[in-house]
C-alpha cells in the first residue's frame, strides 16, 4: 500500500513538473524583458544594439539622475540584433524597450511603423529641425510616423595606406591624394598605376566600388514611387565597378568576411571606401597598422554609408520611460560624448561646428581630422530614397558583381544579368 502511494505521488510530481515547464515558457514570453510597473515604480529599460555605441558612461550618468530607472545594455552581433527585433515584433512580445536600428534595416522597420512608438505623438517634433533633413526622413514612414531618433551617420571618405602609396611612388599627403581623384575614372587610373608598379591589387572588391558610387547618385535602386530604376544610378555604379574589375585592380574579397580581414594584414588592397564607423573596424582588425592609414576625400562628392536610429517598440511596458531616455541620449552633450568615446559622427549638423568635433584628430589614422572630413561628406550629401526592397536588391546585384569576379560571368553580359536579378527581387 505504501509503495502504491509513493508511485502515485511520483507520477503526480512528474505531471506537475511537465505542466510547470510549459507554464514557465509562456510566462516568460508574456512578461517580455521589462519589470512590472507596479513594483515601486522601479523601471528597467533594456537597450539592444551592436558593437560599441559609447553608452557605458552615459548609462551610469542617467541612472544617477534617475534613481528609479535601471538600464540594461545588450550589445550583440549586427545582423542578429536586427533579426531578433523583427522576430519579437512578429511574436508581439519580448522585444527590447529600446533598439538601435541601422540604415540597412530602417526601411524594413519603417514599413511596420505601427509596431513602434511614433515619436511625433510623444513630443518628438521639436527634433526635426535639429537633424540632417535626410536623416530625419529616412526613419519616417510613408504615412508620416517617426519611428526613430537618429544617433549617428556614416559619412563617406576614402581611407588609404600611406606606406603602400609611398612604395608605389604615389603622393602620401591627404590633400595631394584627394587631388589625384576628383572623379571615379581618375580613381581607376590611379589604381592601374598602383597595380602596374607594385603587382598588387588596389581596391578590396568590385562591390565596394559599386556601393559608394550608388550612394552618390540622386536616385538609387528605387524612385519614390517604388519603381525599380536600374538605368539611372545603378547603371553608372555598375559600369564603374565593371571597369575596375576589367582594369584588374580589385582583390575580389567579400567585405566583413575572414578573407577580407586577412586582406588587411597581407596588404592585399591599398584603399577602402570608409564611413566614420569603419575606422573602428580597421583599428580592431589591423592594430599593428597604426599610422599607416590616412583619409582622403572620396571621388564624386558626398555620400553616406550606414548610421543608426534609436527606436522604441510599442509592445514595451515602459515606453514613456524609454522615450525619455532616448530624448536624453540625442541631446548635444551626450552625442558629443559618444563621438569622443567611439568616434560615431552625430547626425545633428549644429554639432559639426562644435570644437569637440571640429578639432578632433584620429591618432590611428595618422592624426587625420576625422570629425571635419566626415561631417563635410554627410552635409554635402544628395539625399537618396531607399525603396522597400533596397536591401535584397542590393544583395542580388552584388552577387552578379561577385560572379564576374569569380570568372563565371563575362563583364559584357553582366549588366543584363544584373537587371534580370534585380527585377526578380522587385517582383517577388
Amino acid at each position, binding site marked *: *500500500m505504501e509503495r*502504491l*502511494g509513493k*508511485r*502515485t505521488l511520483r*507520477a*503526480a510530481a*512528474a*505531471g506537475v*513538473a*511537465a505542466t510547470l*515547464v*510549459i507554464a514557465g*515558457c509562456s510566462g516568460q514570453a508574456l512578461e517580455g524583458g521589462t519589470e512590472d510597473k507596479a513594483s515601486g515604480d522601479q523601471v528597467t529599460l533594456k537597450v539592444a544594439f551592436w558593437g560599441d555605441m559609447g553608452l557605458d558612461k552615459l548609462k551610469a550618468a542617467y541612472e544617477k539622475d534617475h534613481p528609479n530607472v535601471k538600464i540594461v545594455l545588450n550589445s550583440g552581433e549586427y*545582423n542578429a540584433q536586427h*533579426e531578433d527585433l*523583427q522576430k519579437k515584433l*512578429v511574436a508581439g512580445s519580448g522585444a527590447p524597450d529600446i533598439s538601435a536600428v541601422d540604415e540597412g534595416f530602417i*526601411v*524594413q522597420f519603417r*514599413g*511596420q511603423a*505601427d509596431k513602434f512608438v511614433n515619436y511625433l505623438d510623444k513630443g518628438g517634433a521639436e527634433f526635426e529641425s535639429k537633424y540632417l533633413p535626410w536623416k530625419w526622413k529616412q526613419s519616417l514612414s510613408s504615412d508620416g510616423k517617426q519611428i526613430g531618433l537618429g544617433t549617428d551617420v556614416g559619412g563617406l571618405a576614402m581611407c588609404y595606406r600611406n606606406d603602400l602609396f609611398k612604395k608605389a611612388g604615389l603622393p602620401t599627403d591627404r590633400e595631394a591624394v584627394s587631388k589625384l581623384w576628383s572623379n571615379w575614372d581618375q580613381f581607376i587610373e590611379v589604381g592601374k598605376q598602383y597595380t602596374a608598379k607594385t603587382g598588387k591589387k588596389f581596391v578590396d572588391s568590385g562591390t565596394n566600388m559599386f556601393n559608394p558610387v550608388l550612394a552618390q547618385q540622386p536616385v538609387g535602386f528605387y524612385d519614390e514611387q517604388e519603381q525599380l530604376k536600374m538605368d539611372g544610378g545603378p547603371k553608372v555604379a555598375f559600369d564603374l565597378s565593371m571597369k575596375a574589375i576589367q582594369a584588374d585592380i580589385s582583390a575580389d574579397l*567579400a*567585405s566583413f*568576411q*575572414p*578573407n577580407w580581414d*586577412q586582406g588587411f594584414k*597581407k596588404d*592585399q588592397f591599398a584603399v577602402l571606401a570608409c564611413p566614420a564607423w569603419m575606422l573602428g573596424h580597421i583599428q580592431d582588425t589591423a592594430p599593428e597598422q597604426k599610422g599607416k592609414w590616412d583619409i582622403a576625400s572620396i571621388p564624386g562628392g558626398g555620400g553616406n554609408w550606414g548610421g543608426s536610429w534609436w527606436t522604441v517598440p510599442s509592445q514595451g511596458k515602459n515606453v514613456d520611460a524609454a522615450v525619455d531616455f532616448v530624448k536624453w541620449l540625442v541631446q548635444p552633450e551626450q552625442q558629443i560624448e559618444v563621438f569622443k568615446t567611439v568616434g560615431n559622427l552625430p547626425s545633428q549638423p549644429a554639432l559639426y561646428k562644435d570644437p569637440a568635433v571640429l578639432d578632433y584628430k584620429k591618432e590611428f589614422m595618422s592624426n587625420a581630422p576625422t570629425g571635419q572630413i566626415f561631417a563635410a561628406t554627410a552635409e554635402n550629401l544628395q539625399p537618396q530614397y531607399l525603396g*522597400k*526592397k533596397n*536591401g*535584397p536588391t542590393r*544583395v*542580388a546585384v*552584388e*552577387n*552578379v558583381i*561577385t*560572379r564576374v569576379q*569569380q*570568372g*563565371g*560571368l563575362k563583364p559584357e553580359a553582366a549588366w543584363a544579368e544584373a537587371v534580370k536579378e534585380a527585377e526578380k*527581387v522587385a517582383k*517577388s
Partner: protein
Amino acid sequence: MSLTQLRPAAHHRAEPPKTPSKAKQWLYRFDIKTVPYALIAPFFILFGVFGLFPIIFNGVVALRNWRLDDPTLTGWAGFGNFTKLLSDEDFWNALGNTFGIFILSTVPQLIAALIIANLLNRKLRATTWWRIGVLLPYLTPVVASTLVFAVFFSRDYGLANWFLSLVGFGQDDPLDWRAAKWSSWIAIATMVNWKWIGYNALLYLSAMQTIPKDVYEAAAVDGAGPWRQLWRITVPMIQPVVVFTVILSTIGGLQLFNEPMMFDENPQSASGGSDHQFQTIAQLIYKVGWKDLNLGYAAAMSWALFLIILIVAGVNALLTKRIGGDR
C-alpha cells in the same frame, strides 16, 4: 437455490479487513489507468507545443499572404503560394543543390561508415581509443567546425588549395571553391561527411557485434573473403540499423542549413553563393522569410520541404530494404 447459497452473505460484504478502502481502490485504479498516460504526457505536450503546433500553424500561414514589409497585403492566398513555387526557378535550383549535396554526402558517408565499423569490429590494439576517436567530429559544434572548413576551403591561403598545389594544380590560378557548383558541393559534402561518418560507424558497429561469430566462421570455411562477408553477411544482418541511418541521413541531408550558410562568402545574404550555387532549400526558406520578409511564401516552401522529405525518406527506406537482401 444453489446459486444464492454460493453468494456471500450480506454482512460479509461490509467486513472492513478483506477489501481495501474506497480511497485506496481509487488510487489503485488511478495508478493503473491514468498514471501511464501522465508519465508519457510530457513528451506529447512538448511535441504538441514545439512540433505539431508549428507544423499546423505553418500550414495555415502557407495559405495566407503575410509580408512583413507590406502589412497592407494580408488575407487568404489559397494555393497561390504553392503555385508560385512551381514556377520559381530559385526553388528548383535549391532543390537540385540540396539533392546534389545530399547524394555527395550520404552515399560516401554511409559506405565509409560501414567500412570503418567493419575495421573497428576486428581485434585492434586500443579498441576504445579508436572507437571514441571516430566519434570526436560528431562532438564538435557544427558552427566551430564549419568555420574551420570555410577557412580550409578559402581561395587565398586555404589549406585545401595548398594540398592541390602540392600535386601540381592551381599554383597560378587557385581554385575558388565557392565559384562553381561542383567544387562548392564537394566542399560542403566534405564537412557533412567528416561530421557524421564516425557517428554512423558506431551505430553499425554496435549492430555488428550482435552477429554471432560462427556465421562468419562458416562463411570462411566456404571460402568467402572479407569483402564478400561484409556484403553478404554483415549488411543483411544489420539491415534495420542501415535503414535507420538512411532515414536519419535523408532527413538531415535535406534540411542542410548550417554548412552552406557559413560556407558562404557573405553569410548574411543567405544566397548560397553568388549564383546560388549551393543554396539549399532550408537556406532559401530562411532567405525568403527573414531577408525578403515574405513569411507566407516561406511557410509554403517549408511545407513543400516537409512533403519532399516524407517521400524521399520512404523511398530510401524501401530501396535500402531491397539492397539489404530481401529479394
